[in-house]
C-alpha cells in the first residue's frame, strides 16, 4: 500500500515537473506589442515621476570598500531606513518645483559629489500633466559641474504655461 502511494506521489510530481518544463516556441509572425514591464526584481524600472533618477550605471556604482560595523538591516534602528545602499557617486540632496513669474513651472535639484574627484554630469527634465501625459518634450541635456565633495544644482524652467503636475529629471555622466 505504501509503495503504491509513494508511486502515485512520484507520478504526480513527475507530471507537474513536465507541466513546468514547457517548450518556448518563437512565433516570429506579427509585430510585438509594446508593453509596460512589471518586474518584482526591478522595482525601480518604471518611470518614477517627481524624482531624480540616475540613468548612468557608471554614476550609480562607485567601487570602493564598504565598511559596515553592523548588519545593514540594523541601520533602521539608528537612522531610519538605510539610504542609498548603492554607492552612488552623487547624492541628490534636495529636489523641488516652483512657479516662475510668468506662470511656467521650474524644477531644481541639488547634487553633492561624494568623490574626491571633479565630476561633470548632465541633467534633463520632462514635464507631465495630471494623467502623466507628456506636456512638452525633454529639455536639452545641461551640464552640472561638481567639484570634489562639492555641491551644485540644476535648474530648469518649462516652456509651456500649461498645467504641469509632474516632472522627471534624468542624470547621466557628461561625455
Amino acid at each position, binding site marked *: 500500500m*505504501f509503495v503504491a*502511494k509513494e508511486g502515485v*506521489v512520484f507520478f504526480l510530481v513527475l507530471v*507537474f515537473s513536465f507541466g*513546468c518544463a514547457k517548450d518556448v516556441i518563437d512565433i516570429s509572425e506579427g509585430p510585438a506589442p509594446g508593453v509596460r514591464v512589471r*518586474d518584482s526584481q526591478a522595482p525601480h524600472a518604471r518611470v518614477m515621476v517627481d524624482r531624480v533618477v540616475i540613468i548612468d550605471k557608471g554614476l550609480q556604482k562607485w567601487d570602493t570598500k564598504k565598511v559596515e560595523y553592523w548588519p545593514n538591516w540594523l541601520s533602521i534602528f539608528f537612522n531610519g531606513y538605510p539610504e542609498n545602499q548603492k554607492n552612488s557617486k552623487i547624492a541628490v540632496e534636495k529636489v523641488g518645483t516652483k512657479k516662475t*513669474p*510668468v506662470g511656467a513651472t521650474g524644477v531644481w535639484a541639488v547634487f553633492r559629489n561624494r568623490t574626491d574627484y571633479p565630476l561633470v554630469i548632465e541633467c534633463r527634465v520632462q514635464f507631465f500633466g495630471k494623467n502623466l501625459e507628456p506636456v512638452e518634450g525633454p529639455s536639452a541635456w545641461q551640464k552640472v559641474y561638481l567639484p570634489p565633495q562639492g555641491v551644485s544644482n540644476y535648474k530648469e524652467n518649462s*516652456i509651456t504655461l500649461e498645467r504641469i503636475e509632474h516632472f522627471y529629471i534624468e542624470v547621466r555622466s557628461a561625455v
Partner: protein
Amino acid sequence: MNYRRLVGLLVVSFLGCQNYKTVRVKGQDGNPSVYIDPGTSGPNKGVGIESQDIISMTDRIVRDILNQPSIFKGQKPPKVIVDAKYFRNESISVINKNIITDMLRNHLVRSARGRILFLGREYVKMLENQDGGEGVGGKVDVMGGVKKVFEWDYRMGGRITSIHSTNPKTGMRSTFYHFSLELVSAKDGVIVWSGSYDLKKVSREDIIYR
C-alpha cells in the same frame, strides 16, 4: 501517514512551478546606425563648438527668454528680430552663426505660441516684390507698408568669445567659450534681457571644424 508527505511533496512541486525565472534584458546594442543623438557628443571629441553645445545653449536661452517677465510687460505681444546680423563670432572656432540664431528663432517661434511675435527681416524682399501680381501688396504703398510691418520692439545681438591655450609638450588643448546674447529695446537701446552660456573643453584630439 504519509498523506502529509504527499501533500508536502505536491506543495513543493507547485512552488517549484511558481518560481519563474526572470529573463533580464541584456544591454546589447541594436543594429549599427549612422545616426547619433545630436544632443550628445559623437566620436569626434575636439575643443570646438559642436552640436550638443549649440542644442544645450539654445534650449537654455529659449527657456530663459520665455520666463523673462520684463519682455511681456506691454499689452500687445512684443515684436522681436532674431538674426545673425548683430551676432558676432570673435572666438577661434569656425562656426556658421546662422545655425545658432536659426535654432533660437525656430525654437522660440514654436514655443512662444503668440506671446512673442518674430519678424522675418530676412524676407523683406519677398514683401517688396509683392507688386508683381503675386499678392495683395500692389494695392498700397509697398515700401511704406513694408517698413511699418517690420517695426520691431526688441532685437537680438551678442557675440561668441574664447580663450585658447595649447601645451606644446603634451599637445593638450583647452578652449573656453563665452556666448553672450542680449535683447535690445528699439525705443531707447535698453538691454531688457541678457543671457550667457559658458563652456570649457580640453582635448588632445586635433579635430578640424568646418
